[in-house]
């Protein structure tokens, strides 16, 4: 077995009821990679992410980040280690303004949880504004997060993770729920942001064009296992993938 990458799993398994959501997954992600994950619903993509970010505990196997065993750590602990995450259903503070959401995120980097220190003073405003710009949210900075359209919610969702300065960014279907013509624009913004911050990334995606365009590596999930792993083009040519994932 080769040495560990930035994120690695060994024999990662999880099954609830009869369903096997993760089946002895061995996986390594190298720094700088931009990994796309494809697979049909229920193939275990989100489960894998949930395990890696501590939302679910595996029945067996280990998760390593930076060669440190983080299996079963809380999302909080894992986040603090430098794993950022965005969600299929954007997880934002609907009753806070966009800027407040980001400030709250930023405050947690400094670990200042003052009872009296006003939030605005607890964070470095430039950082926040920079991130807002980066994800093209400046215009909506003072609107309630709950009032944003889906696309911008997705961006805010990512922004809140990005402001934490993660080493790895895991994005669960960043373009789902966004109209096809917006998708590319959205991905452009995201990828530019990730490049600028030099963040290794994993993103779950259904749209093959987007995968072709943005991924440096592709993993195809089938029934809780990685059925194919490699350069996007060859994986997309793999007959099993064609049959079970793209479904042509």
């Amino acid at each position, binding site marked *: 077995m080769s040495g560990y990458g930035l994120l690695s799993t060994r024999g990662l398994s999880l099954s609830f009821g009869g369903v096997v959501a993760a089946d002895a997954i061995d996986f390594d992600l190298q720094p700088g990679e931009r990994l796309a994950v494809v697979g049909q619903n229920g193939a275990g993509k989100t489960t894998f992410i949930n395990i890696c970010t501590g939302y679910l505990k595996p029945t067996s196997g280990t998760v390593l980040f930076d060669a440190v065993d983080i299996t079963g750590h809380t999302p909080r602990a894992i986040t603090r280690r430098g794993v950022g995450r965005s969600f299929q259903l954007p997880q*934002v503070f609907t009753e806070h303004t966009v800027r407040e959401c980001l400030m709250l995120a930023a*405050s947690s980097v400094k670990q200042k*949880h*003052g009872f*009296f220190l006003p939030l605005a003073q607890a964070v470095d405003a430039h950082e926040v504004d920079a991130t807002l710009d980066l994800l093209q949210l400046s215009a909506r900075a003072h609107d309630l997060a709950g009032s944003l359209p889906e696309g911008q919610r997705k961006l805010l969702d990512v922004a809140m993770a990005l402001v934490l300065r993660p080493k790895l960014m895991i994005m669960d279907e960043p373009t789902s729920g966004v109209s096809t013509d917006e998708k590319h624009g959205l991905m452009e913004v995201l990828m530019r942001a990730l490049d600028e911050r030099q963040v290794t990334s994993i993103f779950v995606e259904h749209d093959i064009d987007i995968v072709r365009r943005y991924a440096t590596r592709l993993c195809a999930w089938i029934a809780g296992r990685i059925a194919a792993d490699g350069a996007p083009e060859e994986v997309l040519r793999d007959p099993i993938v064609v049959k079970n994932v793209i479904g042509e």
Partner: protein
Amino acid sequence: MRLRLLIAVLAAAVLGLAFTFPWLKTPILLALANGLAVSGVIVLIRAGQVSFGNAMFACLAGYSAAFLARAWHLDALLLIALSCLFAALAGAVIGLFIVRYRGIFFGMLNLALSMVLFSVLGKFGGLTGGTDGLRFDRPTLGFVHLEREPFETALLVLALGLSIIAGWVVQRYFASVSGQALAAIKTNETRLEYLGISAKRVFWGGYVLAATLCGLGGSLFALTQGLVTPEMGYWVRSGELVFIAILGGSGHALGAFIGAFLFEFMKLYTAALLTGAWQLVMGLVLLVMVFVAPTGVFGMIERRLRPGRSA
């Protein structure tokens, strides 16, 4: 800012009334005591949680004040400080496990605990004076012996001061990192965790603050009455606190006090005018508030103050 002005005007009005009509002192004191307790409840509402047992901290503080007063005849200021401290400690301990719960379970567990306290106070009469509660003689205030009238006046001024400070603290807290995180508990705890912030620790902070404020209210209540009874901790009392929060508006600490005053005078005049229909009136008012003005009286005032933005 216009809000500051409003607060100043109200404070002046309160003092004015108290001096013009001495008999109003007791109700005003009670209103301020309630207001303090309710500002605690408002903190919890920030986190989207409502406790049907928060009066237990007022009750605990009240009893500790009574015990201290009877045992060592401490000064009123000391009594307030110590009993608040006690409420805070109780809140810290109970908070340790109660912050794991949300929604109905949070409300019900608080209720259960307050009922345990209520029953224990009633049961062990030897120590707690049973259902009759404990009386204690008027303590010195600032180490000065005062007759009832001056004592009440002094206590009132003190209570008003404390209320303004408490209100300021609460607002400051709401704007703080912890306060903002607390509000985030209401909308998205998962994200909070994924930001590396512990929702439980944040909520614990809020819970302790709430307990302390309720304790402050309770100790003032006890000093005003010179009497504490288990009733102080009965769950309906906690319900009243939540009611006041909704009546006054949970958006701002000032709402707590506006609500408390409306409540106190509603009570006085329902008791006098339509005896026996107190709960009926309270219930109807609550319904009206929920359906017509869920942001409470303060919500209405706020809209007047800044027409632009409606929170």
